[in-house]
């Protein structure tokens, strides 16, 4: 469990050293339609990509697109951190990138639709501000795709 009180002191200190202040003034967007009408994209910082895509570098602020139409079982991971479990993802892609669950929500009309493209970053070795340019680029791509909401998963 990631309750800091349950972790060894060195791991607790390591995770607390990642505390960063907010990136800027607070932003807020209220829901202006039903959740069942939203177009949703998934974004993860788990360093996922398809096998033919370039792997992530040790510290890397770039992103990889994940087409909604490609088979997510072909996703692999090149995250540089060694401090998390990978056996669960080896078993089930949805543990980190819950695309099948969102497809089920789409089929059941619990959400409106899924984006054409989802995205993966690799969250390690850099401060959040290092991702500002590429995150802005992805925000522009999401707007073009008429995405209303993003579901974020760390690793």
């Amino acid at each position, binding site marked *: *469990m*990631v309750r800091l009180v349950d972790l*060894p002191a*060195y*791991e607790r200190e*390591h*995770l*607390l050293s*990642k*505390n*960063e*202040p*907010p*990136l800027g003034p*607070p*932003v*807020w*967007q*209220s*829901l202006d339609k039903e*959740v069942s009408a*939203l177009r949703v994209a998934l974004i993860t910082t788990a360093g996922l990509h398809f*096998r033919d895509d370039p*792997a992530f*570098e*040790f510290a890397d602020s770039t992103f990889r697109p994940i087409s909604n139409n490609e088979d997510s*079982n072909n996703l*692999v*991971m*090149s995250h*540089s*951190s*060694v*401090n*998390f*479990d*990978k*056996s*669960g*993802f*080896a*078993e089930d*892609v*949805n*543990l*980190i990138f*819950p695309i*099948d*669950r*969102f497809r*089920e*929500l789409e089929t059941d009309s619990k*959400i409106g639709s899924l984006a054409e493209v989802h995205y993966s970053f690799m969250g390690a070795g850099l401060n959040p501000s290092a991702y500002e340019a590429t995150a802005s680029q992805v925000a522009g791509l999401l707007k073009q795709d008429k995405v209303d*909401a*993003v*579901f*974020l*998963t*760390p*690793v």
Partner: protein
Amino acid sequence: MTTGISLVRENTASMQPPRALWVSFPLGRPLGAPGDAAFQHRVIDAALTLLREESGPVLVDYPEDAPKVEINDAPACPVSFARPALNYDTWETALITELQTLTSWHDLGRRRRNGRTLAGVSAFSPRENLQKLGQLLDDNILPTNELKWFKAAIEDLKVFYIESLTAQPGTYNPKQLENIFWHETTLGAALLKFAELFKENPALAAMARIIAPRSATEKNQD
């Protein structure tokens, strides 16, 4: 608008994203339970519910823990390792011998996962990577000019081993797998040796931290 999962509550509370659902699950498991669609849906539903909040930032604690897997309930490890490196003259021989015991298990695991594997990100085969790692250790050389190859090779091999150890159907305890990998396999011993060597090299000490988790290196010093 965004919503999502927080694995380290303190980090999220500090950065204050608009909406986040903190979960008590282990790092690497933001949806909690592999292969459990109902569990994953409950987590997603709780995170999507945050979209209806009218002001923020919102950081909500998810009430359910991930299902625990008791070590006695997990499938038995299919291979008995018992540090065979100690019985061979060279790291290279020990690593290649270990690979031979794992290959058929990896094939079996891959078939069980309908062909899915995370291995193969490195441009080289497990055998080629193990051979080269073994030769480096036998010659007491660090791959200072090939760090990118080294990292890709070791991560590829780790996942190959994990997929082999979990070839049989069942639910596994991740800590148990970590312990077997780092403290029973020859590759685990080889990587801890590399981590030690990198740590002794002031210019490359940071590499040690992306070879093995602290939980493995600390235990190795016991």
